[in-house]
């Protein structure tokens, strides 16, 4: 017998490890709307299997909790069973010996608080409040409801122009989204259950790169109605696009020199090439939309004048003001806001950072954009300072990784303390207070706390502040538009502004800084509701026939990820970083689509929405259902869902 042995997993253990990974992916692909009580029971059963069996509360208590919750689902218990479940779970929390039992019982307690009404519905009415809300996960999670399985299958058949036409039915910016969409559609892709989510954005990129020039559809006959759009970003132009298609006369007012909003003045051209943006905007304007750039509404022309002049008004001014850190020395020379810097870059006024030490404050996507732009503008060293850990950054992971690959330093757990300046008032350094990562907050992110370490001096010639954006609300408030606490415009999910006739609002100025696709979705919803408000019911549809699916290939296969240009080459210019898929890659990747529009629940109900228009009246028959479970845990404002895509 040997004294020590090398630990080797057995075959069974190796397979179980594999199954754990499969389960993780499965949970990631879990469709919203599942009965939370049923899920609580099944999570609990997993926990129960993990108990070591040593202590009573965990070994027996979890089993009894499971029995009681099953009784709620399948039996006819008295409502008092909820107290029994709660008391038992509390005792397990209080007395179990280790985290296996304590945390499992905590899950049950969280559920009892978080979805008590679901428990009660089961007990009192033997029914479930949960209903499947997204038969086609990608479509349901796309704020604009783009027909994703439809265009994926068109790409698979090489019909890229048709794919673009199909996308335009719900989103007039296929190219913009092909380059920079944060692709919420991929989050719960059912293909996760087999191997990995489909690279949806990558396939869209392939489609727009290979579609050629796709002419816009014909407009409906002129209605004689006119709409003014305030703000020519993705949301405003989307509203303008659909309203123009419906036959209304549309005029866009833009404060900046050029159209595009954050797509031009926020997103650097190495992510979204300018010529692509210009071509997409030109295509939208080809519908005959009138544009006034360099006009500040509220100053050059008042809201009231616009209200008099037009039948309807859509406010989509975005969130373009910068937020200040409030630290000492912030007004020193050489301290700039990210918003300001990106705005100049948008108009090709490039700052020169040659040979400089640049320090960026922030951990979001904008912080990464200025970090990577600063590298391209000749900085010697760019340091991104963030007060939490790298994994807590709100920027997309690939953005952070890309910045690091291009030579950026990411200095984490450093909270800005003050900015040091020389006698001429020019910045010389950023002082930070090192942090220690602490307790998890309600949103699930750990809070940084001051560490017992001396402050740190980071030498800097330029400091760029990228800690968030706000909304320019002054002109709005004067004309009677309600502004919420925090500065957002008060508009409901149908983009209407309460107590104001004919004035609609959406996008970042309502939700706070969000994403291009959410602004597009708001613009689409606004177009439908403005059309309805003016007394019309125009249908938006496209005559592209989606290919009938063949049998799906379910053999697990790797996901085709986007490749990027060499870091040392790309960091010297503003050319596009990301490469398009090859024909071979696009064919393989698109064949991984499970066609949830055809297989599964999608073929039965809630599958393809071929046109968006007013749903027929169903008086007395369809009470507004409770908000679907899927959306309930989201505390942040949800972008308006298009009312017509029913």
């Amino acid at each position, binding site marked *: 017998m040997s004294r020590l042995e090398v630990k080797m997993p057995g075959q069974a253990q190796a397979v179980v490890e594999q199954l754990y990974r499969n389960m993780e992916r499965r949970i990631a692909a879990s469709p919203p709307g599942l009965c939370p009580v049923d899920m609580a029971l099944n999570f609990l059963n997993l926990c129960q299997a993990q108990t070591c069996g040593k202590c009573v509360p965990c070994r027996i208590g979890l089993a009894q909790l499971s029995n009681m919750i099953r009784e709620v689902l399948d039996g006819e218990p008295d409502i008092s069973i909820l107290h029994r479940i709660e008391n038992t779970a509390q005792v397990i929390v209080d007395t179990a010996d280790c985290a296996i039992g304590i945390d499992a019982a905590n899950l049950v307690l969280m559920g009892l608080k978080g979805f008590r009404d679901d428990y009660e519905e089961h007990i009192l009415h033997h*029914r*479930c409040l949960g209903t499947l809300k997204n038969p086609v996960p990608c479509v349901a999670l796309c704020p604009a409801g783009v027909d994703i399985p439809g265009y994926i299958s068109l790409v698979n058949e090489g019909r890229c122009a048709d794919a673009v036409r199909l996308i335009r039915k719900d989103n007039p910016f296929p190219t913009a989204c092909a380059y920079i969409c944060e692709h919420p559609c991929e989050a719960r892709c059912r293909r996760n259950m087999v191997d990995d989510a489909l690279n949806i954005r990558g396939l869209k990129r392939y489609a727009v790169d290979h579609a050629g020039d796709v002419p816009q559809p014909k407009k409906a006959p002129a209605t004689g109605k006119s709409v003014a759009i305030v703000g020519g970003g993705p949301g405003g132009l989307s509203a303008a696009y659909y309203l123009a298609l419906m036959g209304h006369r549309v005029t866009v007012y833009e404060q900046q020199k050029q159209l595009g909003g954050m797509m031009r003045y926020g997103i650097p051209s190495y992510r979204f090439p300018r010529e692509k943006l210009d071509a997409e905007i030109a295509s939208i304007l080809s519908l005959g939309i009138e544009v006034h750039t360099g006009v500040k509404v509220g100053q050059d022309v008042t809201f009231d004048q616009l209200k008099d002049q037009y039948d309807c008004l859509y406010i989509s001014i975005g969130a373009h003001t910068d937020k200040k850190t409030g630290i000492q020395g912030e007004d020193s020379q050489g301290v700039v806001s990210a918003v300001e810097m990106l705005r100049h870059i948008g108009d090709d006024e490039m700052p020169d950072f040659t040979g400089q030490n640049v320090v960026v404050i922030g951990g979001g996507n904008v912080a990464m954009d200025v970090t990577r732009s600063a590298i391209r503008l000749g900085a010697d060293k760019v340091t991104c300072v963030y007060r939490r850990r790298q994994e807590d950054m709100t920027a997309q992971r690939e953005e952070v990784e890309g910045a690091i690959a291009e030579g950026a330093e990411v200095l984490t757990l450093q909270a800005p303390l003050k900015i040091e300046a020389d006698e001429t008032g020019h910045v010389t350094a950023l002082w930070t207070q090192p942090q220690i990562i602490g307790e998890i907050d309600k949103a699930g992110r750990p809070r940084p706390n001051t560490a017992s370490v001396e402050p740190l001096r980071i030498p800097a010639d330029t400091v760029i502040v990228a800690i968030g954006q706000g909304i320019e609300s002054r002109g709005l408030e004067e004309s009677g538009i309600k502004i919420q606490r925090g500065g957002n415009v008060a508009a409901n999910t149908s983009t209407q502004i309460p107590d104001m006739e004919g004035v609609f609002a959406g996008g970042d100025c309502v939700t706070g800084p969000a994403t291009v696709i959410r602004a597009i979705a708001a613009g689409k919803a606004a177009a439908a509701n403005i059309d309805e408000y003016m007394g019309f019911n125009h249908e938006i549809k496209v005559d592209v026939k989606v290919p009938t*699916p063949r*049998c799906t290939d379910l*053999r697990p296969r790797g996901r085709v990820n986007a490749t990027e240009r060499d870091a040392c080459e790309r960091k010297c210019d503003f050319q596009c970083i990301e490469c398009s898929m090859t024909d071979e890659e696009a064919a393989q990747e698109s064949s991984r689509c499970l066609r949830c529009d*055809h297989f599964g629940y999608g073929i039965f109900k809630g599958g393809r929405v071929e046109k968006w228009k007013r749903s027929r009246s169903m*008086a007395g028959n369809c009470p507004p259902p409770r908000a679907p479970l899927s959306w309930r845990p989201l505390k942040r404002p949800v972008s308006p869902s298009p009312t017509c895509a029913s």
Partner: protein
Amino acid sequence: MCVVEIAGTQRLVPACNTAVLEGMDIQTNSPRVRQARKTNLRLILSQHNSNCTTCIRSGFCELQRLSHDLNIHYQPYEVQPERSRVDLSVPIVREASKCIKCMRCVQICDKVQGMNIWDVTGTGSRTTVDVSYNRYLKNTACTFCGQCVTHCPTGALTVRDDTNRVLRALADPSVTTVVQVAPAVRVAWGEVFGTINKNKQAPVGKLVAALRRLGFDYVFDTNFSADLTIMEEGSEFIERFTHRGKYRWPMFTSCCPGWVRFIKTQYSAYTENLSTAKSPQQMFGAVAKSYFAEKMGIDPKKMFVVSVMPCSAKKAESELPTMRDACGDPDVDVVLTTRELVRLFRSDCIVPSDLEEEAFDSPLGTGTGAAVIFGTTGGVMDAALRSAYYLVTGENPDPDAFAEVRGSKPWKEAAFTIPGAGTVRVAVVSGLANTRRLMEAVDSGEADYDFVEVMACPGGCAGGGGQPIHEGVEMASSRGSQLWKLDAKAPIRFSHENPDVQALYRTYLKKPLGERSHHLLHTDHEAWQALPKTDRPGV
């Protein structure tokens, strides 16, 4: 269930959801396919209450047939049917323990009837079918058309069985029992007993004889009151048509209770466009418990009126608080569906082919060809136009002059000129999704009519929710054409020529739209609530 094996494909594929492509090599009975079909059927059966002996659908249940066909005689799985919670206060009854979640009810209600009453509810392995939005059926706009019942493959959806109430009345010697038979029943009841005569029809005379064997004191015909309905509704139309400004247009027929519930809940502003005439069933009840009771010296409180209908919604209609005009009791006491009637015959071992044909009793047993076509789409309009023409011109038109409104097209339009009155633009629609389309067109001004006939069930009453069920076959059209044949052969083809209806007016009602007619034969559609108020919104 319907899986096939395709060469070169790893998994079996669902035949119903896979497009056939050139060059596919498909096996429908491979060993793998046989095994898969049996296993899947056994899984279905493991959640099905298979007490076939006491199931209403035994003998014409698709699941039962399939189980026999696939030679399934044992069940390896534990059987755990869902718990049933049955509500008998409405005519449509769902027994969850028999539901196999095929979702046909959801489909027929969504796509054909456009009402979205049924839905898939719950999630995970507890997913089932129930009333949409977590409501109870009694609190919904359900029209009780019963199309979900006739398309259910098992006994999960049924029409409430009221035969015991009829048997109790028949057993009570102090009660006079009166039965009326709706037009569409006569062309469907015989289907269950096989071919009865060489014309493959069950003559109505045999139906009369069979009803007498059950013990009814008087066997009458709803055709009589269908003719009466034409007299009232036709006169009402002429009155409205000649005083256009006083009324909202178009005028709608009111004989289909599913449609009446539909308009009251979906387009309530149009309720006043309904003809105030009661349906033939309710006119019959009101006349039986007044005129007939008086004539025969029977205490109407001791009279029990049963109607046999092709319809489930008629049960709800007879229970309305507004349908108690003759003596304060319900004018019609019990409504049986064609299927319930057949069950009564079978349990009494009545063999129709053994019976001699008999005639209806008098005086409420006489009907014309114009009445018998009430059972099919276009029939009410055709009959009404025949008599309206007469009422205006004093002359009979060709009975086939209005044939444009016939046929099984779901939405028909026509215009006829009645000399002296003008051109009447009519429409005929059946099926509630079609009806919704028509209403949208009327509401938006795209369509403009004077008179519209609506029947909730596709093809009209012939395809009603109370009719015999045949797996995979829609019978409305063939039954309808039999009704048109009965009309063509009828000795009298105009409602206004029904001698017993004429006698009723002469001796009792005096004239159409008169005071007694107003009391007995017309109703206020606004006087009852179609959607009960609930304490919990949306439930």
